[in-house]
């Protein structure tokens, strides 16, 4: 039976971690993810979980400790944000390269400078090519659900998973949520039984060796293949989850998209706000829709491209800017997929909400208005736009 609760995103994720009861959690606190190690160390102190909690001295060490513990054979989790994730960057690549199923919770926050503690996606977008699976969450329910599913996805794909949700907007906002019973979570994730692990007394193995010109390339290809295969694993685990909870997750979610003429692609909490805008527009007879990627790594580029094919105008929304004199990361990747699929739709890019700039339904409305203009004229005056920024 689902338990009706009201929790903040961080409380929800800490609750999921409590129910998962991992072998090791190594973390260093940073706003806005601080509450996660804070709540979790309470669970440890109270004996609610049997986890070994390692309060490390930096995020680099947090991920390093996770790598060691995971290689040893443990189920391992950590949480961070922003500069903390940036400081982990070196070790993120090693976690993925060693194919360790570590779960990283990222309460998305802007990257300095200037210093800012609020939400955008610069931190996780900066780590998009490290070999982590990335799951993005609209609200605290999705953050909770994805944290639980991440365990199974990571262990099956032998890849680390990053669960990303919006700092403050989701992490600190109290909302309704349906929790699973402890026993349900336990049964869903099962026991972790790695095929190979360093603390196996019956086998002497060595991990993370040197690989030179004759083999390094093959190991990187293995990693790339694993990311391709993870797509099916995410779908599998999500359908197993739906059987237990009734909550359905795919690689992405579409809202009013099937007959839409103007559409946007948008991640996380702003997708919820945008759904309200879509409803407003639909009430006026405008065929608006949206697509919210859940998995950005792996990028379901064929599936997403296919969903967008009937639009007359499309805006891809980035809550992170690539300082590349071109576009944000989501735009670059999806338009590149559209190009290879020979899908020629007028498409523009909006960078929005950096550093926690609030995104209102009216802001999203201006995006759809722009799209309606483009749909009727067929002309794009400029590809990249900045939403609600003072020039």
């Amino acid at each position, binding site marked *: 039976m689902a338990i009706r609760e009201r929790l903040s995103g961080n409380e929800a994720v800490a609750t999921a971690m409590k129910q998962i009861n991992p072998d090791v959690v190594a973390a260093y606190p940073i706003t806005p993810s601080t509450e996660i190690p804070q709540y979790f160390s309470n669970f440890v102190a109270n004996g609610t979980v049997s986890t070994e909690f390692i309060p490390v001295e930096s995020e680099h060490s947090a991920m390093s400790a996770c790598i060691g513990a995971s290689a040893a054979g443990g189920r391992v989790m950590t949480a961070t944000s922003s500069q903390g994730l940036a400081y982990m960057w070196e070790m993120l690549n090693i976690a993925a390269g060693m194919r360790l199923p570590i779960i990283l919770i990222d309460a998305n926050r802007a990257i300095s400078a200037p210093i800012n503690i*609020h939400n955008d996606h610069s931190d996780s977008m900066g780590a998009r090519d490290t070999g982590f699976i990335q799951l993005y969450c609209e609200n605290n329910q999705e953050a909770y659900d994805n944290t639980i599913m991440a365990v199974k996805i990571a262990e099956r794909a032998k890849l680390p998973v990053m669960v990303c949700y919006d700092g*403050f907007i989701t992490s*600190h906002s109290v909302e309704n949520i349906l929790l699973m019973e402890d026993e349900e979570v336990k049964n869903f994730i099962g026991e972790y039984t790695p095929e190979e692990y360093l603390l196996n007394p019956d086998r002497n193995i060595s991990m993370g060796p040197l690989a030179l010109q004759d083999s390094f390339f093959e190991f990187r290809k293995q990693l790339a293949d694993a990311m391709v295969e993870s797509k099916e694993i995410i779908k599998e685990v999500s359908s197993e989850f739906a059987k237990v909870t009734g909550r359905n997750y795919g690689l992405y979610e579409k809202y009013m998209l099937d007959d839409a003429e103007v559409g946007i692609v948008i991640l996380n909490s702003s997708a919820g*706000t945008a759904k309200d805008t879509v409803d407003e527009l639909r009430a006026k007879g405008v065929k608006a829709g949206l697509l919210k990627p859940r998995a950005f790594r792996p990028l379901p580029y064929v599936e997403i491209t296919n969903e967008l094919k009937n639009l007359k105008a499309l805006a891809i929304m980035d809550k992170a800017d690539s300082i590349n004199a071109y576009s944000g990361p989501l735009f670059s990747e999806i338009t590149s997929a559209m190009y290879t699929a020979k899908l020629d739709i007028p498409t523009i890019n909006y960078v929005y909400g950096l550093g926690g700039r609030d995104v209102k339904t009216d802001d999203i409305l201006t995006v759809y208005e722009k799209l309606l203009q483009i749909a009727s004229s067929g002309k794009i005056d400029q590809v990249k736009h900045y939403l609600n920024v003072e020039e």
Partner: protein
Amino acid sequence: MIEIRWHGRGGQGAKTASLLLADAAFNTGKFIQGFPEYGPERMGAPMTAYNRISETEIRIHSNVYEPDYVVVVDDSLIGAVDLLKGLKEGGAVLVNTAENIEKIREKLGNFKGRVYTIDASKISNECLKANYPNTSLLAAIVNITKIMNKEDLLENMLESFKHKFSRKPEVIEPNMQAIKRAYDEVIGG
């Protein structure tokens, strides 16, 4: 959907009040949101917190710009902050103040909607022997918004206090007293 904006100063508990209200509404089966707007978190600096209360799932994740209700935790904010910004004409403002309601109405300018006052600090000082206006403001805003009736509120808060003050049961009764008084003593319209 009802949207509420709380104005307070850092350290006065506007955030806690918004979370208490979210809790109470949650307990009556509603969908809720409760969140503060985090700025530079300084004691005494003006800050805001928000609530959304709805019969259906809440998807919007922006701040509240056109509230149905505004709660002012500290009357020294009148004139210092644009308290009525975006407040719907059919909406209402509740001010925690010791001043006469007519004077507050005057200070708020030509707001056409309803104005309410409560001396939550006085109630708190008398019942709790300390200035914690949160729970009294909560009772007053429940009375104004009719999110739930008085009986439900009292039952709800008793449960929540029993949990919250399990180690200090002696403060439960004074808090309940403050809630009852505030529910009845809010004036205006």
